[in-house]
C-alpha cells in the first residue's frame, strides 16, 4: 500500500512540475541511449565513464583527476546556455525564435570585425567587441519583432530567412578583411581574446575563458528581468494571453519588439564569446555552428526558465564534450546526438506523457474504489 502511495506521489509530481517531467525525460533519453549501445554490441559503461570524467574530471580506469575536462565542459556549455536563453526569452512572450542561429552569426561576425579592426586597448577591446556583438544580435532579432508587431509577419518565417542572410552576409563581409583566405582571417590581436590565465591555470589549460562570467550574468539577468521586473510582468502577460494583456493596456507591440531584441542579444553574445573565446582568428563560416538551433532544444528541456535553461545547457555541453572521450571508450559518438534528439522528442510529446499519467491515475483510482467496496 505504501508503495502505491509513493507511486501516486510521483505521478502527481510529474503532472504538476515541469521540472520533474524534464528530469524524467532526460533519464528516459539516457535509458534509450544505453539500450542502443547494447544493441550495437558495445559496453554502455564506456558512455557513463566518459560522462563521469566530463562532470568531475575523474577517470575511473586510471584512477586520476583531470580538471581540464571540467573546464572544457563549462566552455562547451556557454553557447548552448546563451542560445537557450535566447529561445526561452522569446518563448516566454509567446514567440518562436528560430532565428537564434542568425543572431548568433551576426554577433560572431561583428565580434570578429571589432577584434581585428577595433582599438587594441586591453580589456576595453573585448568589452567593446562583446557589447557590439550583443547589439548586433539585438538588432537582428529586433527586426523580426518589428516585422511581427507592425506587419504581422510570422516570426518563424522571418527568422529562418534572416538566418540565411546572416550566414552569407557574414561570409561576404569577413572575406573582405585584408589577409583573409577562404576559411580564416589573420590572427586576432591578444587584446581581443577572452583568454584568462587564471581560469586556464585553474582548469589545467582548458578553453574556459572570461565568457563564463557573462554567461552566469546572463542567467541571473534573465531570471531577474522575467520574474522580478515590471517589463518581465508585461512580457509574461503578453506571452500567456496576448489579448488580455492588450485589453489591460499593456503595450503588446512594444513587448514583442523588446523580447525579440533581448532574445537576439543573448544569441549575439553567444556568437561573440565563441569567436573570441574559442578561436584565435576570425572564421569565414562555411556553415552554421548549430548552437542557435540547439538552443531551441535547450530551452524546451529547460522549460524556458533561467535555472532550467542553464541546467539544460550544461547537459548539452556535457554531451558534446563527452564525445571524444566516448570515442576512445569505443562508444560511437553519434550516440550523443541520438540522446539529444530523443530528449527533444520526448519533451515534445510531454503532453502525451501527461495524458498517459492521467489515464493510469484514473485507472488506479477506479481499482481502489472497487477494493474499498
Amino acid at each position, binding site marked *: 500500500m505504501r508503495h502505491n502511495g509513493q507511486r501516486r506521489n510521483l505521478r502527481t509530481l510529474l503532472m504538476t512540475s515541469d521540472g520533474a517531467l524534464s528530469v524524467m525525460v532526460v533519464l528516459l533519453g539516457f535509458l534509450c541511449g544505453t539500450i542502443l549501445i547494447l544493441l550495437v554490441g558495445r559496453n554502455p559503461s564506456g558512455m557513463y565513464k566518459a560522462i563521469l570524467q566530463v562532470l568531475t574530471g575523474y577517470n575511473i580506469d586510471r584512477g586520476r583527476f583531470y580538471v581540464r575536462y571540467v573546464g572544457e565542459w563549462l566552455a562547451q556549455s556557454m553557447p548552448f546556455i546563451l542560445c537557450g536563453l535566447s529561445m526561452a526569452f522569446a518563448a516566454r512572450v509567446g514567440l518562436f525564435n528560430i532565428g537564434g542561429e542568425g543572431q548568433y552569426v551576426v554577433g560572431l561576425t561583428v565580434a570578429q570585425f571589432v577584434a581585428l579592426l577595433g582599438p587594441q586597448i586591453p580589456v576595453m577591446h573585448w568589452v567593446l567587441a562583446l557589447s557590439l556583438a550583443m547589439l548586433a544580435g539585438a538588432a537582428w532579432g529586433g527586426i523580426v519583432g518589428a516585422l511581427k508587431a507592425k506587419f504581422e509577419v510570422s516570426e518563424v518565417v522571418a527568422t529562418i530567412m534572416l538566418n540565411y542572410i546572416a550566414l552569407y552576409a557574414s561570409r561576404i563581409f569577413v572575406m573582405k578583411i585584408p589577409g583573409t583566405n577562404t576559411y580564416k582571417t589573420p590572427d586576432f590581436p591578444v587584446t581581443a581574446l577572452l583568454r584568462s590565465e587564471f581560469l586556464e591555470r585553474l582548469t589545467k589549460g582548458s578553453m574556459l575563458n572570461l565568457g563564463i562570467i557573462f554567461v552566469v550574468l546572463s542567467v541571473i539577468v534573465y531570471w531577474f528581468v522575467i520574474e*522580478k*521586473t*515590471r*517589463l*518581465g*510582468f*508585461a512580457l*509574461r*502577460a503578453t506571452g*500567456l*494571453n496576448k*489579448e*488580455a*494583456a*492588450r*485589453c*489591460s*493596456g*499593456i*503595450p503588446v507591440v512594444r513587448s514583442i519588439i523588446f523580447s525579440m531584441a533581448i532574445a537576439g542579444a543573448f544569441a549575439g553574445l553567444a556568437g561573440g564569446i565563441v569567436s573570441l573565446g574559442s578561436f584565435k582568428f576570425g572564421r569565414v563560416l562555411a556553415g552554421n555552428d548549430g548552437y542557435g538551433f540547439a538552443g531551441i532544444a535547450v530551452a524546451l528541456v529547460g522549460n524556458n526558465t533561467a535555472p532550467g535553461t542553464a541546467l539544460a545547457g550544461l547537459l548539452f555541453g556535457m554531451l558534446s564534450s563527452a564525445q571524444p572521450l566516448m570515442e576512445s571508450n569505443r562508444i560511437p559518438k553519434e550516440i550523443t546526438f541520438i540522446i539529444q534528439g530523443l530528449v527533444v522528442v520526448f519533451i515534445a510529446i510531454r503532453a502525451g506523457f501527461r495524458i498517459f499519467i*492521467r489515464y493510469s*491515475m*484514473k485507472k488506479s*483510482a*477506479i481499482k481502489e474504489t472497487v477494493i474499498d467496496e
Partner: protein
Amino acid sequence: MESVAIELIGITKRFPGVVANDHVNLTVMENEVHALLGENGAGKSTLMSILFGSYDPDEGTIKLRGKEVRIKDPNAATALGIGMVHQHFKLVHNYTVTENIVLGIESTDRFGMLDLSTAEKKVAALSEQYGLKVNPRDRIEDISVGMQQRVEILKTLYREANILIFDEPSAVLTPQEIDELMDIIRRLKREGKTIILITHKLKEIKAVAERCTVLRRGKLIGTVNVADVSEEQLAEMMVGRAVKFEIEKGPAKPGKVLLDIRNVTMKNSRGTRGVHNLSLTVRSGEIVGVAGVDGNGQTELINAITGLSPIDSGEILVNDKDISCMTIKERIRSGVGHIPEDRHRHGLVLDFSIAENMVLKNYDKEPYSSRLGVLDYAAIVDNAEGLIGQYDIRAGEGAAMKASNMSGGNQQKAIIAREIALSPDVLVVAQPTRGLDVGAIEYIRKRIVAERDKGRAILLVSFELDEIMNLCDRIAILSKGEIVGVFNEGEVDEHQIGFLMAGSVKNATNVEAGR
C-alpha cells in the same frame, strides 16, 4: 400507462479533482418533455454527454426501453435513436441546409454520385411535418441563428432520432425565437418524440416541460412534476437556498454626462459595417443597458470605447475629454473600466496567479512597481488578499492560486474587484453574469448597482433580456449596428424590445425622451 424511454441508474463520472456526476438517477418517460435543471457545473452536460456517448461513465448503467445498453460513442447513440442539438452548432457555413444534414451519411446513386435531391425531398418533408419552415437549399451563412438551430434539429430527425437532447437551446435566441422554439418543442412532442431539455432558465421549464430533474454539484436533488412547483421552488432546489429574482435598487439619481458617444461609425472585424452613426450618453449614477441579439454591433461598441479597435469617425467623450484616439492604457488612466464579455480571453491571464491578475492594469504603478521598474510582490499579494476578502472571492490557495484553477464565478468576481478597485468613472460591463451560477449572479448584480450608487456611469451590454430589464435605468436597443430606440426603465416590455431587436419595427420615437 406510459412506458419508460430512458433510465440512467447510479451514473458516476469523475474527473481529476471533481466528481461531475455522483450516483445520479434519471428516468425519462416515453413522449415526455423532461427538463434537466442545474447551475453551471452541476453536471447536466456531463450526464447528457454520457447518454450521448461522448463520455464513458465510471459507474452506473443506462437502460433504453428497459434494455441495458452500452453507448460507446455518439455514433452508437445515433444508432439507438438518440439525437443531440448542441449549444454550439456544428454546421459548415458555406454548405446548404441539406448538405449539412446529410454530412456523414451521404447517400449515393448507382454510379456512386452524391444524391442530394432525394435527401432534399426528405428534409423538406420533415421540415413540413414538424413545422420548422426550413428551406433545404438555403446556405447556412445566409440564415438566422434560430434557423440554424432548426437545421440542427432536422439533422437529428433525419437520422431518425426519437429521443432529442437540447443543450441550452435558448442561449443564442431572441425572445421571439425562444417562443417559436417552445412551439417547436411542443410540436415534436405531439409527433411522438421524447425530449430532454438542458437549461437553467426556469421560464422555459414552466412553459414546456412536464417533469424536471434538478442536479446540484453533481448530485441528484430530485425529480418533480413541473405543474406542482413554482419557479421560486425550482430555483431553491437548484441553488440550495431561497433566491431573490428582483434586484433591490433604489431610483437612479443621474448626474452629469460621463460617457458621451457621438456619431460613431466603425467596421467590424470582417471589414463590413460594425456600428453606424451611433450616439448614446451615460450619466453619472445610472445604468444604461444595451439590448440586442448577438452580433448586432455590441462587440464593436465595446471595442470603440475601450480602445480595442479603432473607430472610423465620431467622438467618444469621457468626462468631456475625447478619448477616441487614445491608447488603451491612456483610456484606462482616463477612467474607463471594462469588464469584458470573454473573461478567459480578455479578462484574465489564466496562467497567472490571482494576485498577478489583480494588478494587470496597474502593475507598473507604485506600490506594485518601484520607480526603477522592479516589482514588489509583497504589495501585489497584499492587494489581492484585501480584494479577496472584500469581494468574497473563494480562492482555496489564496492570492497565489492560479486563475485557471478558480471557478467561473470567482474568476468573474476577481475581474470585477480589479476593475472597481481602479474606481473608473465609466464602467463598461459586457455579459457580466454569463455562465455563472445564481449565487454569483446575485452578488455581481448587487455590486453593479452599488457602483451606480457611487456615481459611476455604467454601460451594460447583455444578451439576457431579463438582466437588462432587471438592472438598467435606461435601455438602448441595438439592431444592425444602430440604436433603434432608447427607453426609460418601465417604458417598454420584453415584447416590444424583442421586435426592435429583430429590426422589424424601426422607430426612434423615444430617442429624445431617453436623452
